[in-house]
């Protein structure tokens, strides 16, 4: 029998394996290390221990300026959006009971992309700034993601979502959304084209504190909310019949989870863009590390997702120092082969 830590109060319970707890602590340490390295590397190198000093308030003024105003927002956006996408993918995989589900593959990211690009294009003064408040972007992205999620849900009401149909619908929605996005870009001013293309691939370039402050509340509200519901996710994994038998209100929970997952995707995509394969890869890797009980799986996915996106961003801006390669390119380069590996592995299940 594995050693388990359980924690129960009224209306809440959590079961975490002792070994998984250690894994989580190690992952958190790695994430912190990546944050320090990632903040330190750039045109001006700052050693990780100096970065740590800045965080603790002991750094010299020059380091503090570079870290706090220039580099930290970008790393934080990478961290938050990575965590959001990973948790969103973990939820979808439980609800749809398909290991291949992730927000980008089923077209939800595409919906968010259209809406966000539309706001960026139509509500700008043609130069650099938006004419509407910045928090419209995540709201629009959330709305776009919600529309696609709702359509998916309506289409699956009749016969239920089989994995194959889900992937097919995802491809269909993705293609349609791509067409819409291209249309929006073509209709808008030309100087937006480059910006929009960068955004679609997924990049955390040019993040600032204002963006961090907008995305932070979403994550601060929704991530804990999902941890709170983790036990219902465990039940969802078992299938409709078992879940109903265990006394869960399966249908209501599923709608709730789809909503939460969409909210997280919308917020993550709003500033970081369509970073692909994070929502697929992070939960899988997390499952390998801590098992499939959602109490430990969700935090592990969140940490892995953050690490993944931060590393992709770090690679993107250091590999060819003169150019910025969007983080989304690296997540895809690592993610697509892994997806193919999963595909070959899953031959017995599909």
């Amino acid at each position, binding site marked *: 029998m594995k050693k388990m830590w359980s924690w129960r109060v009224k209306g809440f319970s959590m079961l975490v394996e002792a070994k998984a707890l250690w894994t989580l602590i190690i992952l958190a340490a790695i994430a912190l290390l990546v944050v320090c390295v990632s903040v330190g590397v750039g045109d001006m190198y700052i050693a990780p221990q100096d970065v740590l000093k800045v965080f603790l308030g002991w750094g010299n003024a020059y380091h503090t300026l570079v870290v706090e105003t220039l580099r930290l927002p970008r790393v934080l956006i990478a961290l938050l959006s990575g965590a959001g996408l990973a948790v969103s993918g973990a939820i979808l995989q439980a609800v749809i009971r398909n290991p291949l589900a992730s927000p980008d593959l089923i077209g939800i990211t595409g919906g968010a992309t259209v809406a966000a690009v539309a706001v960026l294009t139509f509500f700008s003064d043609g130069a650099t700034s938006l004419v509407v408040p910045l928090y419209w972007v995540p709201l629009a992205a959330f709305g776009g993601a919600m529309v696609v999620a709702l359509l998916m849900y309506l289409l699956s009401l009749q016969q239920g979502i089989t*994995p194959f149909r889900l992937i097919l619908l995802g*491809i269909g929605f993705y293609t*349609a959304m791509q*067409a819409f996005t291209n249309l929006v870009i073509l209709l808008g001013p030309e100087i937006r084209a480059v910006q929009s293309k960068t955004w679609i*691939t997924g990049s955390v370039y040019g993040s600032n504190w204002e963006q961090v402050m907008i995305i932070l509340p979403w994550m601060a509200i929704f991530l804990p909310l999902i941890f709170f519901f983790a036990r219902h996710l465990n039940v969802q994994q078992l299938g409709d019949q078992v879940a109903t038998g265990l006394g869960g209100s399966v249908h209501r929970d599923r709608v709730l989870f789809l909503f939460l997952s969409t909210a997280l995707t919308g917020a993550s995509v709003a500033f970081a863009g369509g970073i692909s394969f994070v929502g697929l890869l992070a939960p899988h890797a997390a499952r390998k590390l801590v098992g499939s009980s959602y109490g430990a799986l969700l935090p592990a996915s969140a940490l892995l997702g953050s690490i993944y996106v931060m590393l992709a961003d770090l690679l993107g801006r250091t590999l060819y120092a003169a150019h910025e390669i969007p983080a*989304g390119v690296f997540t895809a380069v690592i993610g*697509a082969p892994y997806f*193919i590996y999963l*595909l070959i592995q899953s*031959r017995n299940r599909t």
Partner: protein
Amino acid sequence: MKELAYSPGWKWTGLIGGVLLVGLLMVVSVSVGIMRIPFDVVIDSFTNFNGSNQHLIIQTTRVPRTLIAVMTGGSLAIAGAMMQALTRNPLASPATLGVNAGASLFIVIGVSFWGMTGISSLVSLGFVGAAIASFAVYFLGSAGRGGLTPIKLTLAGSAIWALFSSLTQGLLIMNEKGLEELLFWLTGSVEGRSLELAMPVFPFMVAGFILAFLLSRAVNILMMGDDVAVGLGVKTGFIKLMGSVVIVLLAGGAVAVAGPIVFVGLVVPHMVRWAVGTDHRWVFPYCLVYGAAMLLVADISGRLIMNQQEIPVGVMTALIGTPFFIYLAMRNGGERA
């Protein structure tokens, strides 16, 4: 399922009707646009060209885009039909199986790394990309114990597609200068391409058409399954190889000329099979004719919907094709999962 046109007479009628329809659409396509040109002026520009604005527009932009639309539409539809036959997967098409993405990636690599601009080198890159993507998707789709299954093929297609299109985006962003001109191309469009640029591709497409027609009997037999086909004396390996050559010629050529245009290769073969059944001796010619017709319709409506702003044909086909694709997914998904 009973097809719509069941007797040879009806089938010929449908085919000839399709040819007439394409002819009519070509005339409309030449005369309609931001500047409307009456039909007699169109005729005039061929018989006695006088160098006026209208004549210039017809000869340098309208006629090339019309011809390119016809060739590309036909190519994509036949490539789609061939893919669906070879993989026995009703959802196969150049776009969903990543062939478009492969061709795009290689063309963008050529432009941004080697500064290629000549259409002939771009076309050969398109072919190479299409071939590599098809091979990769086919290989991955048949890896593992279960052999080639529709779901694995589709998933492999979307994985390859995601990988290649991310790389394409990354390259485009690294060289911003090229982005502006390539963006329109990457959406899929038949506008703004001169006939001299497209001409070198046409022979490849025609070769693809002829090869497809020659293969049609063998493809019919192949549809019954590999075992039956071998029993009936068909060299399945050879036929599949030749079929792949057709796909690469047609899909690669179409992408090289017009950029990635989605859903024509998916939707048209389905409509054609609904009309004339699964005999590929009829399916391929019908695909040629009605694929051309669909692309012309998409192109013409893209010009008419908004004033002063053309919607690229790739966007139009996506908007027309998506509902159909979703319908197919809903109908077929249940049986195959």
